[in-house]
């Protein structure tokens, strides 16, 4: 099981993404964005999956994989 954290441009984006995770039967929780990940103070979703996760919405800012040594970026909207 791999753990990811997704950050969003709005609180609403996080709520929406969690709902999409739950629709795929993925364990997902909303929480404050870790400081190491962003200087913004919004809400993120930590979710756990073997492989697939929900489609990125327009609200997704970045997605990272949580590794023991830190975060590994796998998507960042501004860099697309």
């Amino acid at each position, binding site marked *: 099981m791999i753990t990811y954290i997704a950050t969003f441009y709005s*609180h609403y*984006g996080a709520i929406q993404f969690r709902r999409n995770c739950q629709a795929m039967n993925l364990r997902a929780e*909303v929480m*404050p964005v870790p*400081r*190491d990940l962003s200087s913004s*103070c919004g809400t993120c979703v930590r979710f756990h999956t073997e492989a697939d996760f929900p489609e990125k919405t327009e609200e997704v800012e970045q997605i990272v994989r949580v590794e023991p040594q830190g975060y590994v970026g796998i998507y960042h909207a*501004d860099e697309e």
Partner: protein
Amino acid sequence: MKNEKGTIVLAGGVIGLIAAILVFFGNPANMGFCIACFLRDTTGALGLHSAAAVQYIRPEIIGLVLGACIISLAKKEFRPRGGSAPVTRFTLGAFVMIGCLMFLGCPFRMILRLAGGDGNALFGLVGFVAGILTGTVFLKKGYTLKRSYKMPKLEGGIYPAFQIVMLLLLVVAPAFIHFTEPEGGPGAKHAAIIIALVAGIIVGILAQRTRLCMVGGIRDAVLFKEYKLLFGFVAILVTALVMNLILGAVTGTSYFNPGFAGQPIAHTDGLWNALGMYLAGFGCILLGGCPLRQLILAGEGNTDSAVTVLGLMAGAAFAHNFGLASSGEGPTANGKIAVIIGIVVVAVIAAVNSMRKEEA
């Protein structure tokens, strides 16, 4: 940041210390920092309102923005963005200020008033928490002002650059701006420019690193049972209180006067203290942060927050031009009407922007 909670508590402690010391160096009592009051004073210094008692370009504001800007540039966190409902944010900012000036302080000064023994701030705190709780109901219902977008560096840099202009006006061209006459009111009470500026820069850096936010603290506690940010403000309260007691013992002038009547730059109308901060708390949660946090984000290049700060300043101008701001004597009739209108407007903004949840 290995121990985020420890860092936040430490930062809060330093900020509380600085706030108490600023009063020792000349700021008004229980007003080492007050983002609402200081933006109001700056607005007056620029002649946007003509309340002679509260006109002074506060270097603390300049320092907060520049401190956040410098540290975010150094840490590669200066990220210009914007475009998330700017007019709505401007409007919310204006009403948050009207709420703050009903109470006579922003959430930051509310804590400092408590640290000075001002019991009236307890009513403010109750209203503030109630406002935040109201706002979180809408957050849970899907409230959003839609996302922000990446902006050019220049766009994000304009507001911090504006602070340098303000500093130049204060230091080099004071003839262009308004000053409260000596003994003429709170605007005349201030620490030396360099002290206030450095204090602002330090607090700006600490607040950027820790994301300290009074609204965020209570919001995270309610929504996520996450108390880190809240501990920061508890730390401010505790150190400012202890520092007030020490300053009182050392100087022989009391910095801690527990009670309700006769508190500095405060009134005793509990209901309107509470309703003012209810409006501020409700508005701030829809904005995503307290006035301090908006300044810090503006320093990081967030133009939505810069627009919010301009809204706060416009609110201050309205408050003093139309007699909405309270005084030591109490709230005004106009102020009460404006706060009620503000609560209705903020509620409408919250409701209308929560209706899109079905589209998800």
